[in-house]
């Protein structure tokens, strides 16, 4: 057994039993972050804060929400919105955060693509990040079912129908997922379970993996420079803070991180108090009705780009294109054949590739929102083909990239 002495303070008492000084060193004061970074490096913390906001607001909603097809709609739109003091706040915070979290995820993702932060030992950071994207998508979808409005019901119908695999007609699988022939009580209760338990646990585990994956390769920097963290850390600790290329995670880096978080939160609560409407679809304020289809069924804005890849094609080809779009980002570290881990601006053709991809995804998002007819339908088709084409040519343009 370890040797314990009479504690001189509460700090010492805890330190002997939990090693809190060592934990703080490893997690904060001697966890090194490069100096050469910008505000885009704060998106991870912004996401962590947004996830916490979702968790807290979700806990309060959970106390009044009823996962029953007869009472769910009223428990949200009457009980929470009108009876519970500040119930509206939790709902609007939850809805706005669920939408904004995807905006930040996309910024976080495109920052990584731009600076090549998925290369040279950082592949696991990228993969765990993409798994988080998948988990957040499942979380968003399952949460969207819960108010049991028209959009909840029909989005549930359409998305679960995707699992029939087009011409494969795997209707048995669809019925198994739903627990019924159509979305009904079994469907609502199981998606409730997924939304409040299984997927959040998965997300927490993946966040742990994502942070863990960062430990050994460390955070990338604006020039993709390979930093010898041990040498630079020694410089910092010896007092040469100006000469060192790194700073401590806490308090140095965190002070700036939280500054960005502060600005973000002002923007976030501005949306919550004055512009929450964008996160709540008007159609979903009608209770679910299995015998009446809404004129247009469209997903939330963050799924529109992949929805638009599904839409312009016939059922089977559309499903294949959709599946392609879901998995292809995961393979980025291997499809990019160039060893250069530098910003896209110094990578020749890849620079063009990056900006075309970004514009293409914004175009797909815009076209996913408008009805699929006339010129929009053509633009959508071209954008969907461009998306697939971009990924097909990526290995070739990066293979011949000049070594920087």
């Amino acid at each position, binding site marked *: 057994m370890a040797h314990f002495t009479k504690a001189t303070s509460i700090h010492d008492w805890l330190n002997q039993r939990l090693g809190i000084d060592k934990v703080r060193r490893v997690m904060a004061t001697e966890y090194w972050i490069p100096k050469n970074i910008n505000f885009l490096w704060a998106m991870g913390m912004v996401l962590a804060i947004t996830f916490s906001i979702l968790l807290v607001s979700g806990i309060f909603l959970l106390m009044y929400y009823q996962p029953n097809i007869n009472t769910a709609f009223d428990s949200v739109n009457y009980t929470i919105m009108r009876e519970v003091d500040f119930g509206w706040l939790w709902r609007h915070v939850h809805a706005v955060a669920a939408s904004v979290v995807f905006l930040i995820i996309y910024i976080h993702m495109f920052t990584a693509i731009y600076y090549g932060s998925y290369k040279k030992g950082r592949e696991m950071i990228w993969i765990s990040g993409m798994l988080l994207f998948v988990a957040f998508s499942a979380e968003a979808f399952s949460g969207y079912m819960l108010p049991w409005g028209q959009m909840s019901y029909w989005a549930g119908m*359409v998305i679960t129908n995707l699992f029939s695999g087009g011409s494969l007609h795997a209707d048995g699988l669809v019925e198994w997922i739903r627990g*019924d*022939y*159509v979305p*009904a009580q*079994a469907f609502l209760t199981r998606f409730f379970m997924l939304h409040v338990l299984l997927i959040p646990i998965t997300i927490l585990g993946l966040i742990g993996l994502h942070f863990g994956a960062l430990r050994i390769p460390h955070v990338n920097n604006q020039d993709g420079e390979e930093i010898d963290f041990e040498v630079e850390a020694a410089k910092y600790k010896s007092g040469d803070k100006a000469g060192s290329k790194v700073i401590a995670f806490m308090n140095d880096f965190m002070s700036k991180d939280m500054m960005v978080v502060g600005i973000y939160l002002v923007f976030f609560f501005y949306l919550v108090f004055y512009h929450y409407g964008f996160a709540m679809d008007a159609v979903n304020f009608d209770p679910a009705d299995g*015998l009446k289809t809404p004129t247009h069924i469209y997903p939330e804005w963050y799924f529109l780009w992949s929805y638009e890849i599904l839409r312009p094609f016939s059922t089977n080809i559309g499903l294949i294109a959709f599946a392609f779009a879901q998995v292809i980002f995961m393979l980025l570290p291997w499809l990019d054949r160039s060893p250069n881990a530098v910003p896209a601006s110094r990578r020749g053709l890849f620079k063009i590739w990056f900006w075309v991809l970004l514009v293409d995804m914004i175009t797909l998002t815009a076209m996913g929102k408008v009805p*699929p007819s006339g010129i929009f339908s053509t633009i959508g088709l071209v954008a969907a083909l461009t998306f697939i084409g971009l990924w097909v040519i990526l290995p070739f343009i990066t293979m011949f990239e000049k070594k920087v």
Partner: protein
Amino acid sequence: MESNGRRGFMGKAFGAVAAVGAVGSLVAMKKSWDPLPSVRSAGFTTLDMNVYKDNELVTEKWRGKPVFVLKKTAEMVAKQTDADKSRDIVVGGNHFMVSIGLCTHLGCIPGYNPKSESFLCACHGGTYDFSGVVTKAPPPRALDVPPFKINGNMLVLGEEGPEYKIMKETGITL
């Protein structure tokens, strides 16, 4: 070495027990997600075919989905094409169109116009004739026929009778 051999054996023995347990739990988990017996047994709808009126569309409900029932008039029966005839359901001497009322394109519910004797899906403009056969794209196929069994003057939806099996085998419906 001897004790390592024993540990190895114990490890494998545990692995075997755990594997059996894991497979068993997966079976239980899969089955727990299956539709409940009450859901399955509610999957049958019996229709009295005497109550329908000529050329008047009635929407019944089967397994939570709308089912169109349309009693065809003598003129409609006379002008049926081969495709129409193959989908015709005859109960007690009367001819019926019975289909799942969801557009085969993206699952919207088409509306019936008794004057033009046709269905129009407002979502993407697909049309069907009075038998549910596509007359204008985008729907990829005619309206699906639900499994049915003719029982005297009654029609049981959810059970597969000989007439339905023929339709299914010949690819008239899915």
